[in-house]
């Protein structure tokens, strides 16, 4: 198992390197000249040339990449073109908000989605199953940003049950922290809950038809044992990769909730970087999200290996 995890870590690193090459190359295609952006509209050609030299922008792309990558490995993602802040520092400063949003939303997605899906699958054909199935179809179509807006309006603006905007750090107050996260995270996880519930329901129903269920039943296993000991465990492994994908989508779409609830998270930083043509910030932000998503995928793989002995390395 340890060997397997080490191996997966190594391949994670390789994917990360290739991804950084891809993204760095993509950014090079941009018609934007970072020196021009950094110096503003009134810069003289001499100033631009000097900065281009200083930043090594006149060197071959390959050299630029190696310079960027070696610095990045030491945790230095360069400086923002706007204001000159350290990219790493700017991102880390905003991480607590983003991590809170992601974490709580993923938690809701996993437990809400699995709970509803397993429940509906076990009782397939019942009224409860119909409700979950129809609810999931609607949940799939509801845009998270609209739901975010609607619940903000209903529960924060009109009913005043939750704060309209802003974020309370967990270090200040745990309940205040949760309180500020419930609305955005519910809206953020809704789509994932629907997807996971649908998938979980389907795999449970499929697991019920498996020959081993027939064999257990023919030798006297009661329904309770079949469902809770066997079917659920068998149904989980196909759902796990879906959970991984949905967690990635939550990380990517959290920016919407940051905007609606005016929370200064890392996603907002990314959007600002796009609007301001701040390429180092963009690259840093995307690489940071990439790291996180790859780690989620790694955890999913480890989880799969723990659940299913067939994918476990011997």
């Amino acid at each position, binding site marked *: 198992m340890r060997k397997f995890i080490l191996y997966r870590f190594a391949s994670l690193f390789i994917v990360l390197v290739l991804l950084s090459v891809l993204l760095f190359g993509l950014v090079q295609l941009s018609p934007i000249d970072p020196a021009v952006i950094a110096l503003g509209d009134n810069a003289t050609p001499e100033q631009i040339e000097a900065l281009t030299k200083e930043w090594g922008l006149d060197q071959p792309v390959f050299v630029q990449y190696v310079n960027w990558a070696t610095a990045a490995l030491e945790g230095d993602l360069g400086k923002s073109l706007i204001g000159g802040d350290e990219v790493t520092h700017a991102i880390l400063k905003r991480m607590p908000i983003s991590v809170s949003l992601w974490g709580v939303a993923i938690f809701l997605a996993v437990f809400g989605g699995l709970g509803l899906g397993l429940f509906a699958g076990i009782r397939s054909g019942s009224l409860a199953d119909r409700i979950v199935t129809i609810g999931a179809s609607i949940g799939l179509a509801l845009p998270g940003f609209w739901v975010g807006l*609607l619940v903000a*309006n209903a529960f924060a603006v009109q009913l005043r049950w939750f704060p309209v905007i802003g974020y309370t750090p967990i270090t200040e107050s745990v309940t205040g922290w949760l309180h500020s996260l419930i609305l955005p995270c519910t809206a953020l996880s809704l789509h994932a809950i629907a997807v996971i519930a649908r998938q979980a329901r389907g795999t449970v129903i499929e697991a019920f038809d498996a020959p081993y269920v027939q064999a257990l039943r023919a030798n006297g296993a009661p329904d309770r044992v079949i469902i809770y000991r066997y079917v659920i465990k068998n149904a989980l492994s196909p759902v796990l990769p879906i959970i991984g994908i949905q967690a990635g989508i939550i990380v990517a779409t959290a920016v919407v909730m940051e905007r609606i609830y005016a929370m200064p998270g890392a996603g907002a930083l990314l959007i600002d970087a796009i609007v301001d043509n701040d390429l180092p910030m963009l690259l840093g932000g*995307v690489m940071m999200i990439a790291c996180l*998503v790859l780690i989620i995928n790694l955890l999913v793989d480890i989880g799969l290996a723990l659940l*299913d002995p067939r994918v476990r390395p011997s």
Partner: protein
Amino acid sequence: MSDETLISPATTNEYDLPPHKSWMRNLIDRPIAIIGVSLLLLFGIIAIFAPFFAPYDPIALDPLQRFKGPSAAHWLGTDALGRDVLSRIIYGARPALGAAIAAVILAAAVGISVGLFAGYRGGNWDRVVMRATDMVQALPTLVFIFAIIAVIGRGILPTTLAVAFLFSVIYVRITRAIVLRERERLYVDAARVAGLSEKRLVFSEILPNLSGPLIVETAIMLGSAQLVIALLSFLGLGIDADAPDWGGMLNDARLYQGLHPFLAIPPGLAITITILLFNLLGDSWRDIATGHDEKKNHRRRRNSVIQSQGISSTPLENDALLTVDGLTVDFPHGKNQQMRILDDVSFTLNKGETFGLVGESGSGKSMTAMAMLGLVPAPGLISRGAVRIDGENLLALPENELAARRGQDIAMIFQDPVAAFSAVHTIGEQITMPLRTHQGLSKRAARDRGIELLDRVGVIDAANRIDDYPHQFSGGMAQRAMIAMALSCEPKILLADEPTTALDVTVQAQVLDLLMELREDFGMTVLLVTHDLGVVAETCDQVGVMYSGQIVEVGDVGSVFETPRHPYTRALMKATPSGEEKQDRLKAITGRVPPPWAWPKGCRFHPRCEFAEDACQEKDIELINLSRCRLRDELDRTTSS
């Protein structure tokens, strides 16, 4: 050893699927799909002829009419600049549908071409393409779109291109997977042999098979593309703020949400309904393509009430342990129709004897064994019949009492032993399940007993292997473990459903010997379901021959094999190689077992019977005097002569 292929040359034939409805017919049967398609078409028409439908100019400002609620003049009210919301929604359908459709068409064109190329070429080309798609899919789609928009700029065209690029990756993967699968298929080889050029092969043979899955994916992608485009506008990265567009309208609504909450409703509903319709279209198409009926999912897990009235309790013979009486199983077929799968099956198991149940695939032997345990797969139903052990009807017991009998009084082993175990649980946990459920043994005691049992059935190094998983067991070892599980509570009766069919030829005899040895040791009665007459001759005392859900001949092995009194039994025997008599050729039975919905009237075997007369198809034949043939006595004479 006989080979089933001699009797039934192929399992894939036109009978395997129920009569297929055309997709048109399927669509008509799904009113929701019809409504979905019509609504989407309507939306498309409204978008195209927006100037005709919209009551106002969508960008005309009217400072006197700001933030007006819905009224006769403005059905959906006005926005912060006094613009008519309904008109903006109507015009907003243009970028919403237009950009999504354009992005998906582009994605499909690029993705399908690359996928066809990679899948058909294979080798290094395939590897490069697949690694590239891996890279792109390592990140959530939206993050990549952010990066692309940052590089090529904001606006509707870059947004569409970015979405098209990322969605093309999905097309590449699906297309390639289907091409690889179809390439292996026989008919492509056949077409190649027939001299079709490669180009024609791709277009004429592979593309039609692609269309089903791709249409499903396209419908769902249209929904997602529309969502992503609206989301980018909402974030101010997509379409220009002034142009009417649903995502941008929602962003406006966000700014005034405190005072004018209604502004968020129309654009949000518009987005949701369109996505819902696209998803619905995709789901309906998937159901149509796979012939899947949503109703089938709502299966009953437990057997519903079993009617045992009207079954005469046959007087028990002295040594009868179990009697099956008029067992009849129906499956729903089409609307309000029943299809009879098992028809009035009756036989008796005598204490300590082995009863062989033989017949071709599809004759109902396995169904009989499952029905004896009250375990007909849903939506089937045991509509009549009784299974009596010592005079007590198992099928009349409530489900929980019946469950308690399974494994204790009557246990079962299966054809594919590896599949009959859950892959994610240890062998030990599974084979000790009956001990823990029925006898309440502790985990430790059950494990100790499990090791003994595994050892008894010949699993070497049982103490270690008990913690292995099924995939670490060979087929033969898994069947031994399955036998250990079935015997753990020392049942009186063991149902063995083709226990050796899936095993290697060398292992078959060992497992069969083990079964017979255990039968002696445990004093068990065995029902052996098999298609192998050789096995029956070797191991069984009694034999029942099944055809099309009926027992056509029954009796003790010696007399049935010596003087078969049903033409089907004779045909089966002629199709079985035998070591003693020298046969020049085995004689396959012409034709196939018909499926339950095509069982002929009268004797069900008559279309394949060499002795058939007109009278054979007139009325159903009863099982009289151990044979279900009109000519039972004449047959008797022809064999003996």
